[in-house]
Structure formats: structure tokens, C-alpha cells
């Protein structure tokens, strides 16, 4: 199998080690109420599809970057390759966007509280 590294071009898969399903990037929140369940799912359960599979590969004998490789488990064809750091950053930005309005709201209430405080003094 040849993995088309975003920086280094086509490299033989034997230069890499594979960790497993790319869902391992999405580590659950350990403080969440359902952390027990979430970690059980995260750590032990897998979709294990026949067909397209997104997985984490480590360029151990190269630039030591982590890649997310989309591969067909039936034909071994490599379909897409991206840097895992890019994908993790994009995911973070997305969740940040989602939670952003809440933060604004929180700031507003904090500001209100501050105002109230000031009035009180």
C-alpha cells in the first residue's frame, strides 16, 4: 500500500505504524456525566466497516507525523490522506464555533453581574 503523505508525497505503508480507527482523536470529556459510557465506547467499541475506513497512521520511519488515512478495507485502496493535526484543529474550531455563543452569553451575564456589583458598592 502506498500512502500519499501531504508533505512528503507517496510513501510505502511499511514506513508507518497504524493505531486504529480515527475516532480515537475524539477523546471524550472525562468530567462529563456519561464519561463511563463514553470512554467504554471510545476505548473498546469499533464500527469496523467493510468499505471506507478512516484510520490513524503514524509516520514512524519518516517525519513522525500522524495522518488520517481514508482507506477501503475491502480493496486496500487508499482514498484520501490528511494530517491528523489539521483534522483535530478543524474539529476544535467547529466545537469552538458551536460553544461560542454560549461563551458570549456567559460573558454578558458576567458583565451584568459586574454591573450589579458596582451598583451595590
Amino acid at each position, binding site marked *: 500500500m502506498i500512502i500519499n503523505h501531504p508533505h512528503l508525497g507517496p510513501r510505502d505503508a511499511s514506513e508507518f505504524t497504524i*493505531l486504529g480507527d480515527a475516532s480515537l482523536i475524539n477523546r471524550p470529556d472525562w468530567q462529563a456525566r456519561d464519561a463511563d459510557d463514553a470512554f467504554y465506547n471510545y476505548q473498546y467499541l*469499533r464500527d*469496523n466497516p467493510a468499505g471506507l475506513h478512516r484510520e490513524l497512521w503514524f509516520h514512524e520511519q519518516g517525519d513522525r507525523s500522524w495522518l488520517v488515512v481514508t482507506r477501503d478495507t475491502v480493496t*486496500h485502496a487508499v482514498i484520501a490522506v490528511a494530517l491528523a493535526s489539521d483534522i483535530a484543529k478543524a474539529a476544535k474550531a467547529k466545537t469552538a464555533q458551536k460553544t461560542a455563543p454560549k461563551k458570549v452569553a456567559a460573558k454578558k451575564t458576567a458583565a451584568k453581574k459586574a454591573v450589579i456589583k458596582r451598583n451595590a458598592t
Partner: protein
Amino acid sequence: MRYSIWSLINQALTGNRNWTPVWREPEPKSHYDIVIVGGGGHGLATAFYLASRYGMKNIAVLEKGWIGSGNIGRNTTIVRSNYLLDGNEPFYEQSLQLWEGLEQDINYNAMMSQRGIINLYHSDAQRDSYVRRGNAMRLHGADAELLNQDQLRSLCPFLDYENARFPIMGGLLQKRAGTARHDAVAWGYARAADQRGVDIIQNCDVTDFLIKDGVCTGVETSKGTIRAGKIGVAVAGSTSRVMAKAGLRLPIESHVLQAFVTEGLKPVIPGVITFGAGHFYISQSDKGGLVFGGDIDGYNSYAQRGNLPVFEDVCEGGMAIMPMIGRARMLRNWGGIMDMSMDGSPIIDKTPIDQLYLNAGWCYGGFKATPASGLCFAHLLARDEPHKVASKLRLDRFRRGAMLDERGAGAQPNLH
């Protein structure tokens, strides 16, 4: 027809014209008491023990392809019970004992040959860990002997004892281990089950489960709907795919394991030999071919074929311990899909769906397990409780933190 020396002579004298088919090819009925999905070694053994030991009737085995097309016909045929952990060793020892009486049980020559297995050790620390393993085996009634280098030399003079990097210091011998003819195991169980009334239905792909209010009542197949009181799934490498139809996600990944066979040679290798510093195991078939293998390729796969880097790695392993095989020519190589579990140990258990039972997670050690897996799965299906030697092989052990991790590799299937 019962096979014996007399049936053989009789057929030989009458020109071999009167052999009958080894099993029937029935059309599926619309209802069975028990349906087994998957006609590999485990599914067929389950049906056999259900009929022969648990007195169950009205059983079908549904096989997508033909009997023997899965891993049961693809493995390197090693049978042994040299495990360490309490949850595993009694199970594999039970299996080895069943192997010892198997041919009488099923009236079929499975060519079970107890020619022994030797796990080589290459350092003092490894010897110590083999002493521990040997003791664990003996505590569970299995046999184990530690060989020093002189004892090993007399059995296997051809090993590379002077190897600078991995000197061979001795080995752990299990004499009762050995090899069996894998296809014959499938055919023998199929025939014996068929003779006890089990319907073996080939080319019958199970495409869906009939589930209502959390109870499974049957399966959809390429040969129509089949209802059943209980459904047992034993589909090895296809486990995640099949169980996804029942809405279950499992602690399993599918990986490819390759096997290699050389041209036929005169007898050179006395039993099974495994490398202790890399992953390589070898035996010689009765036809003379060297049969060997090593690691799984390491990436998820349903392709039933592997890639060349593992080929190279396996051959390097072989050359490290027995350079004499370097000039043998490789004739054949193939792959099979392993149901690698998260701790490297199997699962024989109920599922969260009533009347649906699971037999999976065999990794690359499921051939030796075939008889005990069949017996324990039959026990579970017939009695609704785990067999005593399979009481730790539970589906919920991952949630409970009660893993059976022989290798101590953690929740990464490609390391087991």
C-alpha cells in the same frame, strides 16, 4: 455410512462406486429451534455438540459460501493449550482434550497429530516467563516441559543456536500439542452433525435479523426468511458486519493474517516450532510442505489477502531460527480475515438482544479452539448459561475491566 477399515476395504474391492455424499443438501425449513449463522469450524462444531451432547433437535447451520471457505480452511492448523491466564487455559485445555477424542467422536479422520510444539526462548528473562507459563499450564492439568539447550539440540539439531542477536537457549515443550487437517475438521463436523439431523445449508447468506421488542425471532437470508427459537452467530472475521445488522457495535476489528506453504520436502521439522523473539511459527504438513506464518498485517481488512512487507518479515523470522529453509521455494500464500478482539481473547456469550447469541473474537487462535468453542456455545444455547470453562469469555468484560489480555498489549487489536 460409518467409516471404518471395513468400509474402506469394501469400497476398494467394489471399485469405489458406492461412496455416498458426505452430507445432505436440504432446502431450508421455515422454522428451526436453533439456527447457527456461519458454517465455519465453530458453527459446525456447535451444531454437532448441540445434537450429540445436548440432545437438541431441529437445528440448521446457515453458511454464506461453502463449508470450509472461511478461516477453518485457511489456517496453519496448530493445536495447543499453552496459555497463561485462568480464564483461558482451562478452556484451551478442554479443547485439546476434545481434540484427543475427536476422530472417534465424529467418525472422521481429521489427521490429528500430536507431534508437539516448542516455543523457543532467547534470554534468561524469557526462560523465566516460560517457566511461569509452564507452571500455569500444569496447574490446569496441561502438560509442559522446559527444555534446556542440550535437550533442544537433540530434538532440533538444525536450529541456529549461535545466532548473535537471538541466541536459542532452549524451549517450552508441550508434547500433546500438534496439528490437524483443517478442512477435514470442517467436513468431519459437518458430516457428523448432518448424520444427527442438522440441516447444513450452503450458499445461504444471512442478510438481516428479525428483531422485535428486543427479541430476535429469526433471520432474513438469500434463501428466504427463516424463523428460529434461538440464533447463534459464529461468523469469525465477518462478526462486526453481521452483528451491525442487529444494531450492535462490538469490541472487534477485522484484520488479515497470511499463511505460507513451500514445495514438499522430506521430513525435516519434527513438530511445531515458534520463534520467541519475533513472530514466526512453522510445522511440516504430511505432504511435506513447510507451513508457516507470523504477524497479522496490522491494518483493518476484509480483503482475504495481505501485502508483501509481512511476507518479508515472516521469512526473516524463519531465517533467524532455521537458515536451512532459505532455499525452499514458496508455493502458495493466502490470507484470512481474523476477528481480533480488544484483549486478544474470545467471546462466547448472550447479546443484549434476547435469543441472539454470539461466538466471536477468535483472533488467530481459533482453530485449536474449535471443539471447545463448539461445546461451550452449544452449552450456552441449550442451557442459557455459560459452560464452566468459558465463564470468563464474556461480552461485558471490557466494560467491567475484566480483560483477558494474554499479551498485556492493551486495547489495540493489531498488537494481540
